[in-house]
């Protein structure tokens, strides 16, 4: 996929088999009693921490859970994503960390999408101050995001991406990045509601998500080796939401 294209990078793409092999290698090192530093180096090299029941099951797990065989046989791509974790607990907090200057690349603080600390503090106060205008059930979502972002729940991030983020970020980050944020916001407003979505709405979601993903990789990740920490697979995974909506309906 062109989104992951890194300049002058010839490393082979990871496959399901290579990930399982990496997991087995780590587990063997652990069983042989290798040092923690050695294990950590291997984990960083392979990007896998060990066996995973759904992703890379161990031989013992395969034996203990025969009823999961169908799931393993289907392969990873056939399993629908949980949009709560994908969008609300991965992508949205990542965007906040970027804009609030909490996710730096090579400790560079002069990125044009990073807001000044004063602005971040003001945003937190404004969000906290809006409590009295919302129903009781939503008031918990309006905590000071600067102070409490680490303990924000999915429901808090949902309020941020659907409602408050638009107001708090408008005019405070460059319009290119605000447009990226709003594309995700618009895409989330349709499926994250109790009633279903129409065909035309799914097409609109698809358009917004494609704009978000392509703009993210172009304007934020920018395809360079030094910015690889911003090349997250969770961003590209958003492109699977619409096919999954067609297949399974809203999550």
């Amino acid at each position, binding site marked *: 996929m062109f989104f992951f294209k890194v300049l002058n990078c010839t490393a082979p793409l990871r496959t399901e088999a290579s990930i399982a092999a990496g997991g087995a290698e780590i587990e063997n090192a652990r069983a042989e009693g290798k040092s923690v530093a050695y294990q950590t180096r291997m984990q960083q090299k392979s990007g896998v921490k060990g066996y995973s029941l759904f992703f890379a099951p161990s031989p013992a797990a395969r034996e203990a859970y025969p009823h999961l065989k169908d799931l393993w046989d289907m392969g990873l791509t056939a399993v629908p994503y949980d949009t709560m974790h994908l969008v609300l607990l991965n992508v949205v907090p990542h965007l906040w960390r970027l804009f609030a200057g909490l996710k730096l690349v090579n400790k560079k603080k002069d990125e044009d999408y990073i807001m000044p600390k004063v602005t971040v503090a003001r945003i937190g106060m*404004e969000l906290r101050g809006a409590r009295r*205008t919302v129903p009781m*059930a*939503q008031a918990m979502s309006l905590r000071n995001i600067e102070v409490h972002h680490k303990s924000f729940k999915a429901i808090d991030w949902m309020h941020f991406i*659907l*409602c408050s983020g638009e*107001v708090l970020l408008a005019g405070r980050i460059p319009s290119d990045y605000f447009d990226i944020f709003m594309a995700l916001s618009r895409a989330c407003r349709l499926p994250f*509601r109790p009633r279903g979505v129409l065909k035309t709405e799914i097409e609109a979601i698809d358009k917004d998500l494609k704009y978000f993903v392509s703009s993210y990789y172009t304007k934020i990740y920018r395809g360079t080796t030094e910015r690889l920490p911003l090349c997250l697979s969770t961003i590209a995974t958003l492109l699977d939401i619409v096919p999954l909506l067609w297949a399974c309906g809203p999550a």
Partner: protein
Amino acid sequence: MERKIGTLGKLIRTASNPHASLTANVTRHCKADLVSSFGELYVPKEWAATTGKQPEATGIPVGSWVIPEDVGPDCALLPPKKPSLHLRGMELESMRATLMLESATEVPLATEAKKYYRAKLASGSVAGSTVVGSDSDKHRRRNYSVRINSTEEFFLPDRTVGKRLVSTFGAVLYYAAVFIDGRPMSFAYVQRVKSAKDRSGRYGYSAMNYGIETFLGLGGSTYYLPVAALSEVVETIEREGVHYVLHTREPFSVSE
């Protein structure tokens, strides 16, 4: 599905035979859910007598005043309420003006009203009212900014006057239930918002900042309007002295 998976761990209970244990526990839970939902729905009296638990009250709370609507769902004024009192001064004048606009055949010189402080709108959301005195309950009166379905007059090319629907904003001070013209009527006493777009004497309209509806705050004229004209409760964030109206969110729009 995520929530369901999260509960499965507690149901396994044994390491020796997890699948059989999980199956048995899930089956028992499903049966229990089925029996309780059937009992509560089809034999509520017998269910309450057996379990000793009274069924949960549904719909609007006791003491509410339901306002029947000709079209769409009914609205309701919710307790607590104040005893009947005579409207005076500005409130009385506003009420008389509203009754004339509503084409009431009888516009009395004195009007007695019961005041309420919360209302369930036709949209299903609960609108509070501003904190106006020592009798107020701070925990209940919080979401009082409302979007109002209004009409405005404008000149057509042939110099005749036309009417069009517009959306305006205001804050509810209280709700009044009155019995006039031989029928009960309900009104919201609303103060219009001010915005940068307002001209003199024309309040309630929002301005647009960054494509978002905004207003400067309260301070416009106060008037009565039928509760049915309240479209929805709006959430706002105050930023640099300007109140920004948040996007209306469906999942919680009916929550209190």
